[in-house]
């Protein structure tokens, strides 16, 4: 993977990337609290520990590019510029939610930000991302689609179909595997025939095997940017496997106790956010600058939480709306 084509990040860009990662972290922590306080009623899957990926990838994308996320998609949605309040409100099932409460935590979507949905059935969105990429190719818009998925999702049929399909049609799509070592409660290597569930399969689709440090936003950015450039140039798809870890459990209040303490400790030591904080100081940022970023984020989280909580409870009008393109839900005359 040659990174020659990629514009290096300046300090200001990096401060921005810090802000983004820190915001994702603080959002998720608040979401967890809201879950415990029973404001969030359904399920939720947090990305704490994996923020460098959503932030780094978003940085490598153009506003009119598309992301396809999973049920673990809060971070990926926010990183593209979606405001926090409607996302909090969506988790709480309020009418001011991003989808008025109809989708919920697992289906965050904001078409205006290029967030083309979060998908809760493992694998399904890989072929769908191919379709968006095909549309870009057909219309000659040079847009690119990025599709996130987990390590455990590499063993489902749709993964295979999508990879082959994207390769033969040379589609501008990037398959981004966030390998956090675990499926729900099962270690992925225990049920996967190869050590690197995505990268070791790239050759089955004629693709290069690419592995990155998923806890390093700069590296994620650079490799993604190179793949994006390749896709825009009509050179087809890429697959990236990023090594990372979720600090918490799989979903809801799962404490993740099935994981060995040493493993958790090892990865906490590689937490992308303090790491990036240190790097910024080393590269010339001041502690005061970073503290100010953190303060502003925390304030924004508080404001967004209140805004979300102030939302109305959705009613019958929303219930029976938008099954069909005409806005309605009628199946008969």
């Amino acid at each position, binding site marked *: 993977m040659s990174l020659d084509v990629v514009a290096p990040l300046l300090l200001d860009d990096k401060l921005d990337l810090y802000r983004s990662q820190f915001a994702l972290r603080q959002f998720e922590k608040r979401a967890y609290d809201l879950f415990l306080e029973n404001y969030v009623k359904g399920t939720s899957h947090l990305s704490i520990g994996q923020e460098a990926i959503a932030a780094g990838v978003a940085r490598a994308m153009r506003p009119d590019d*598309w992301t396809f996320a999973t049920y673990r998609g809060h971070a990926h949605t926010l990183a593209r510029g979606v405001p926090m309040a409607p996302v909090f409100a969506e988790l709480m099932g309020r009418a001011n939610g991003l*989808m*008025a409460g*109809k*989708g919920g935590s697992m*289906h965050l*979507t*904001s*078409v205006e930000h290029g967030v*083309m*949905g979060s*998908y809760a*059935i493992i694998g*399904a*969105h*890989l*072929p*769908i*991302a*191919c*379709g*968006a*990429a*095909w*549309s*870009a190719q*057909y*219309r000659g818009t040079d847009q690119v*689609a990025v599709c996130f998925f987990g390590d455990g999702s590499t063993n489902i*049929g*749709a993964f295979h*179909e*999508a990879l*082959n*399909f994207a390769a*033969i*049609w040379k589609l501008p799509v990037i398959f981004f595997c966030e390998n956090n070592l675990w499926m729900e409660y099962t270690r992925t290597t225990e049920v996967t025939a190869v050590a690197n569930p995505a990268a070791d399969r790239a050759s089955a689709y004629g693709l290069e095997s690419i592995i990155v440090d998923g806890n390093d936003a700069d590296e994620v950015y650079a490799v993604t940017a190179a793949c994006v450039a390749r896709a825009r140039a009509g050179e087809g798809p890429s697959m990236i496997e990023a090594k990372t870890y979720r600090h918490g459990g799989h979903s809801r209040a799962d404490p993740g106790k099935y994981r060995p303490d040493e493993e958790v400790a090892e990865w906490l030591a590689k937490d992308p956010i303090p790491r990036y904080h240190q790097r910024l100081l080393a590269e010339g940022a001041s502690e005061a600058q970073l503290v100010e970023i953190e303060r502003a984020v925390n304030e924004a989280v508080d404001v967004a939480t209140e805004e979300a909580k102030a939302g109305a409870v959705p009613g019958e009008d*929303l219930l029976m*709306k*938008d*099954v*069909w*393109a*005409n*806005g309605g*839900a*009628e*199946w*008969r*005359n």
Partner: protein
Amino acid sequence: MAQLTYREAIARGIAQEMRRDESVVFLGEDIAAAGGVFKGTVGLLEEFGPVRVRDTPISEQAILGAAMGAAMTGLRPIAEIMFADFFAVCWDIVVNEIAKSRYMTNGQMTFPLVIRSGNGGGLRFGAQHSQSVENWAMMVPGLKVVVPSTPLDVIGLMAASIRDNDPVIFLEEKALYATKGEVPDGDVVDTLGSAKVLRQGSNATLIALGNMVPRAQLAAEELASAGIDCTVVDVRSLVPLDTQTILREVSATGRMFTVEENPRLCGWGGELASIVADEIFYDLDGPIVRITTPHIPLPAADALEDLAIPSVTRIVETVQKSMNS
């Protein structure tokens, strides 16, 4: 005016719409160079070229995923699932993704796409290549479901489906591919959600779909000579459903018979029966009777398949028996 086969009408309907709208694209297995395994798409590659008419690998999830992703970003794809039975290998994309995403996103996304598929039995292809799956689709909120019974309806409903902004499951009856019908020159555009009354009678109303429509018509002729005068309704579109026409025509005769190729349980006929038994219960003069394939997988042998799928004789006998009891 021309005589066209049902099979030729497919390509005619698609071509009509591809000519007027650049955003219509078409993908599927063997649909381009080969013109389709049922020869329903002959000539489209030649007229519209390999960028708009594309052969795919045997990857039904990729085919429909591609159609969905393209539809949400502004194209109007047509995808072929060769045999309707194969919906089972890509059912997730149909029911969990395409059908639900508009609702889940509170209307942020629109899915103007058509999935065409060869539906039903009669060709001795056995249990995995002969199913009538209209009910699989009718059951799922968010899908429109269309089943034409004549070449003219194929063109008009195909055009309407392609122009529609919602996902349409367009089921082509394999047993009808070789049948012929009159088709006017020029563009034909029909309306989704409109049933057709093919025959008006006073004693009973036969409600049929797809390949069962011509059988219901023949049965009605036989029944007429036996003194039972039947209305015949071609449902044409299960979603949206033209309940106005159906309720009116059942009210008028007081007796309802459905003719369904699907195996019995949870068929569209059951749904119609429940609507009728709720909304016009007091207009009914006798039992509602469903004539269906028994609730079995479809056998391959010609003799067995003919026993399984409702025949003109079985329709006639069932109606006679019920009307005379």
